[in-house]
């Protein structure tokens, strides 16, 4: 993968992080550091040169760094981010949603060599799409032929089978909102789900409220999903959340043409535009 070894990349990351801090424009660099478990890393904010040396790069650097940029939407100094392909798409997502300003970010792109994360198997963009400095030679992009196979298989079930399946899943949900907090497309200042007074939905963690939350979430992020899989990864109850969002992505692809989010183009979310020649099923 690429032309650098993991150690070389790690060295380059530390070097670039220090360089960034040295300019004085960047307050900290967000990356990963090791934990007491050999097969786990954790997100890490490096503010000093010494802290930069604690940054690591290995197959367990899984957490998305991008969402941390939202912790401070109005920073006084630039935020540095170690960014893989998926992180850069997440950043693009938030940039398009006006949640971040590009000039507030210093992006250290790293060509990703795959992680111990099942979602990486279907990764179509290992190269960072947006960056200030790039580590590693860009690799050839791949196309995931199986992008929607799981959805297609599920579609074939009967209505009651589908319902039963989801009902069981949502029975497990504990309404913890971890999926929301991890999702780069979930970037509202105040989530609708927290607005109890309006009455969008109830607080209880029962099946119906969970179902409504689940489907609303699909509608809110379905046309912005970058398919990073963070929602599923962080879910403590192991709900197959991607299976819902991918359904919407698949329908969008079927109905309105090829569609992928988080690319650095000026495409708008599908629900925010229309074409006169869109298919019409409601005659």
């Amino acid at each position, binding site marked *: 993968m690429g032309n650098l070894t993991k150690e070389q990349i790690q060295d380059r990351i530390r070097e670039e992080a220090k360089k960034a801090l040295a300019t004085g424009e960047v307050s900290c660099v967000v990356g990963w550091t090791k934990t007491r478990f050999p097969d786990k890393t954790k997100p890490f904010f490096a503010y000093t040169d010494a802290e930069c040396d604690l940054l690591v790069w290995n197959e367990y650097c899984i957490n998305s760094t991008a969402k941390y940029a939202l912790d401070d939407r109005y920073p006084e100094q630039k935020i540095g981010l170690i960014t893989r392909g998926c992180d850069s798409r997440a950043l693009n997502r938030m940039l398009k949603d006006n949640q971040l300003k590009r000039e507030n970010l210093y992006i250290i792109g790293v060509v990703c060599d795959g992680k111990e994360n099942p979602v990486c198997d279907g990764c179509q963009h290992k190269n960072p799409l947006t960056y200030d400095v790039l580590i590693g030679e860009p690799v050839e992009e791949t196309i995931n032929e199986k992008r929607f196979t799981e959805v297609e298989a599920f579609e074939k079930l009967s209505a009651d089978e589908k*319902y039963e399946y989801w009902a069981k899943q949502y029975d497990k949900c504990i309404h913890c909102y971890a999926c929301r907090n991890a999702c780069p497309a979930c970037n509202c200042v105040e989530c609708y789900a927290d607005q109890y007074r309006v009455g969008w939905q109830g607080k209880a963690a029962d099946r119906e409220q969970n179902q409504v939350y689940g489907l609303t979430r699909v509608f809110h992020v*379905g046309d912005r999903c970058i398919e990073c899989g963070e929602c599923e990864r962080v879910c403590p109850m192991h709900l197959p959340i991607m299976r819902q969002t991918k359904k919407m992505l698949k329908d969008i692809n079927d*109905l309105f043409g090829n569609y992928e989010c988080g690319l650095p183009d000026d495409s708008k979310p*599908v*629900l925010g535009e229309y074409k006169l020649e869109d298919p019409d099923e409601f005659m």
Partner: protein
Amino acid sequence: MSVKKDSSWEPVILAFCCNWCTYTGADTAGLNRMKYPENVRVIRVPCSSRVNPQFILRAFQKGADGVLVCGCHPGDCHYATGNYYTRRRFMLMQRLLEYNGIDPKRFQAKWISGSEAAKFRDTVIKVSAEIKALGPNTKFAEGYYAQNEGGNE
């Protein structure tokens, strides 16, 4: 799933109707004394594009057996372009609901203009019959699960 086939059972159908076309069409149906089943309730909205998909989830949650969204024909929107968004939004909604086990007949969208009173009547009759045939909706319905202790529907 076993549905109690109570012949006196009438479905509850909610129809979001745009003020300029379908609501007018429904009024015209009244003006012409057309007859249709009582089980449809209209919520007036300025434009079909005002209808948030969450309203539909809410309706199912609160026990509606069917939901209709009706607006002007594409190209005839009072607000020029609203129903083009409606069209996109609810084509996806219908599919997503189907994917979650809700029969697409339970959620339908239709274009009915102010002059199409007969189409409004026919749509209500048709949808009402279809939903009657499907039986009461228990999926997503609040309280149903609790009452039935997670039993098989």
